[in-house]
């Protein structure tokens, strides 16, 4: 009986932890879209390269760690989920994460890397994202790449927000907050 109670607690705690992580993601992605990216347009051309490299290195810890932990927490929920949270909801969450990070690798990451890149760095990007040359991105101006990033990044904002809303919905179901 004690084991069942403890197991139940672990499942609900995991869901709450995931709720916290998804909320961090929403806070970050909206601020990045509405403040961090628009600031790039105001940075002078001489400083832009150093600014961009510094920015890229600075986001590893605050963005990648919570994002990685959210992926692990969501997959773990297949084995540790409150009874009222269906497996199909966890599958939807996994699909949203998969689409988000696949598109990040294929689309937004090369776009971000190309903005402000030196010719040598462009060659480096073509090694891990060879399709970039087929899309003609390596011949676009900085302004064109920046506009493409800002406009298409709304999709990433929508996906991360949708993921957070889904985890919140799971929390309402799984934690019985409406009935207490």
């Amino acid at each position, binding site marked *: 009986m004690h084991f069942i109670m403890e197991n139940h607690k672990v499942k*609900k705690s995991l869901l*709450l932890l995931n709720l916290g992580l998804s909320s961090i993601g929403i*806070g970050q992605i909206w601020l990045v879209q509405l*403040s*961090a990216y628009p*600031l790039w347009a105001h940075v002078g051309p001489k400083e832009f390269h150093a600014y961009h490299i*510094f920015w890229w290195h*600075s986001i590893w810890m605050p963005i990648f760690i*919570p994002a990685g932990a959210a992926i692990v927490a969501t997959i773990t929920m297949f084995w540790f989920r409150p009874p009222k949270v269906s497996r199909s909801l966890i599958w939807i969450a996994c699909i949203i994460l998969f689409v988000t990070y696949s598109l990040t690798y294929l689309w937004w990451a090369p776009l971000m890397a190309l903005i402000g890149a030196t010719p040598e760095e462009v060659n480096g990007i073509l090694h891990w994202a060879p399709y970039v040359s087929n899309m003609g991105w390596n011949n676009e101006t900085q302004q064109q790449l920046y506009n493409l990033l800002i406009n298409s990044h709304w999709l990433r904002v929508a996906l991360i927000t949708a993921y957070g809303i889904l985890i919140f919905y799971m929390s309402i179901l799984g934690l019985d907050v409406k009935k207490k």
Partner: protein
Amino acid sequence: MTKELFLLLNLVLAFYNVGTIWAHEIDIFRTWKLINGKTFHIVQKAHWKKLPYWVFIPVGISFIGSIILFWYHPNKISITEIGIAFASQFLSHLFTGIFWGPWQAKLSKDELGGASPYLKKILKTHWIRTALINAYGLILLYMTIQTLS
């Protein structure tokens, strides 16, 4: 709205603020030191224009929520816990009023831009605000796990 749902909403908002404070601490403020004097004020002004809706309003609602929790909270949570959570938010706002707010105002008028001593002071101490906002989120997570698990 049940007390449990109210606590859950406070938790969501607390962690949203954790996300925005880390973006400020790591992504935004630290890149300012790389910008020259001319561009600096344009960048800073553009940044502050965005803040009211995406940072100040959620922080304000979260602060009001932390006060309401004193009267409207699940029975399992003690007043001491709510007091500690409130104190971490209150200290963050108090220090902002005393230190970071005035320094930001002086920085906005400083011609040195990214080389301003006020930016150095902000970068040296802003982790305290980050820690306080994180502490608030973690205390709320602890309270919610205690109540809903």
